[in-house]
């Protein structure tokens, strides 16, 4: 296992995320076929495609929720193909889920606390965290960042859908992320909430790269600098947002048939 120094040295030189020949089969179904993809540190990319194109499976392979059936996954130069999810998270990877996965019986503050604690020391500590601890300040900062101060002590189960989606984002921003994977962050949000989301994404520090999966092209194309289109488990096209929007093949396959604009 490489040391922190080695990992940091590698960060500047290579890609943040690198997939080579990644395939994922479920029985006879090939959800991903031979996907090769690289994303640089700090790059903002959208992965688009219709339902079943393999976008979420791709995300799951990167985070380690499901291992690929073949191929390699590298994170900042380190081969993480067989590492369990929690090890990847501790190396700076983060993700959000399409359907919010939150701790419904705990308060908003506890949820954020768990996320911050998860990537720092003392996960097994028997000593309660003091209010003056730096971690608690980070927790408070994150809560204000996503405008949930008013409901900080309420159990998450009682929050509105939009608030839960905001909390979902907060969890991904905990600690010191180096790269974030957003799985349909705009799902079910009102127009105001969508502009809030765009504001949060564009305000992220420049060194944090992300991949965003989205159906809502209006949100996706505003917050990224490059696009990867997927179809039937393969990469179909890559380019800048304007190139992709203008591409006739993309229009026929994706924009035309599914009617999203």
């Amino acid at each position, binding site marked *: 296992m490489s040391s922190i120094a080695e990992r940091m040295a590698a960060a500047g030189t290579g890609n943040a995320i690198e997939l080579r020949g990644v395939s994922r089969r479920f029985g006879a179904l090939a959800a991903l076929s031979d996907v090769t993809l690289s994303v640089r540190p700090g790059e903002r990319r959208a992965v688009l495609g219709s339902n079943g194109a393999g976008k979420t499976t791709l995300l799951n392979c990167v*985070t380690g*929720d499901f291992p690929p059936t073949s191929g390699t996954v590298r994170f900042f130069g380190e081969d993480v193909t067989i590492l*369990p*999810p*929690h090890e990847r*998270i*501790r190396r700076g990877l983060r*993700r959000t*889920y399409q359907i919010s*996965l*939150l*701790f*419904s*019986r*705990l*308060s908003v*503050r*506890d949820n954020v*606390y*768990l*996320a911050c*604690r*998860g*990537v720092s020391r*003392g*996960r*097994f*500590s*028997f*000593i*309660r*965290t*003091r*209010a003056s601890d730096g971690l*608690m300040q980070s927790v408070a900062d994150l809560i204000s960042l996503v405008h949930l101060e008013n409901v900080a*002590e309420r*159990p998450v189960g009682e929050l509105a859908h939009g608030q839960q989606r905001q909390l979902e984002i907060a*969890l991904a921003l*905990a*600690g010191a992320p180096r790269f974030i994977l957003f799985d349909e962050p705009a799902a079910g949000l009102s127009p105001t909430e969508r502009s809030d989301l765009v504001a949060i994404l564009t305000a992220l520090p420049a060194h944090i790269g992300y991949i965003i999966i989205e159906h809502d092209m209006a949100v996706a194309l505003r917050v990224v600098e490059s696009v990867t289109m997927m179809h039937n488990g393969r990469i179909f096209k890559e380019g800048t947002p304007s190139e992709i929007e203008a591409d006739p093949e993309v229009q026929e396959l994706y924009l035309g048939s599914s009617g999203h604009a």
Partner: protein
Amino acid sequence: MALLQSAQESALGIGSAQRSGPFAQWVSRNAAILLLGLFMILFPAIANDFFLRQIAGWTMILGMIALSLTFLAGYGGMVSLAQMTVAGLAGYMIAVLGVSSLPKVSLFWPWWAAVPLAIVIATAFGTLAGALSARTEGIYTIMITLALATSFFYLTLQNWPIFNGFSGFTTIPAPHFLGVDWGKAVPLYYLILFFAALSYAVVLYVSRAPFGLALQGVRDNPRRMEAIGYNVTAHRIAAYAFAAVIAAIGGILLVWQNNQISPFSVGVDVVINLLIIAVVGGLGHPIGPFIGALIYVMLRTFALDALVAVGLDGRRFQTLIGLGFLVIVLFSPDGVVGIWRRLRERARSSQRTSRR
């Protein structure tokens, strides 16, 4: 349905500003438990040996062992039926390592050597139980731990070289130290009270420490916990180890109170009764198992007379327990603690309406 309700304690020490000082606040919030504590400390003044041993002693010991189950099930979502087995193993080890009526088996070590080793062995077993069930889906935990518990019962029943078969061990004395015979009713009572109170306080405190909060996160959403950096399996196993220590201490106290241990101390019915105690009391708060234990001990002591008085067969005690358990699971799955919380909620909301 709130079978595994989380313990919603006060926020992480960041209280809102109030007129009285923090200590006074703390006392008023915890008035009930402090009064109970005071009562328990003064109890030997009014109670005779029977009540000290048979009622209070048993309640606190069973409460402690059930607390280990409540910790795993309530905070961790893992219903482990192996806790009584862990306690029983610790008790057996005290008999085997220490003093008993069987010189050909027991090693006659002094208590300060036997006790730590017994705790270590029992904790190792509890951790093994955790390691075996931690990687499986929640509902399998009951099955696997029940299989482990029943296997241990048959082992103690059939094995003569170490466990002395169905006779078990007798004449296991509590130790003498600091000039006190801890086997006598009053000292033993205080010893048990000390450990019961300590385990209660530790569980309550730890539930809001990173260890306890992480466990609750694992209960509510293990996939998300992995995705925010926690090794879920490691946390589950650690929880089993922590719970095993509590159960082991309970088991040692059990053997010192009873002065004997046999396979029937770890039989299937005892193992299941412990689950009943935990569920009836309520899995949502560390006081639950003690409440459940009190109910169980009272029933066990007085049910015979009560049943006969009503004209029923006094030996149908297990049916009574089973029926009571069913009633709770069907109508108030979060146990007595749940009933108490609902009553308090209703009192608070009616207070609010009457104030307007």
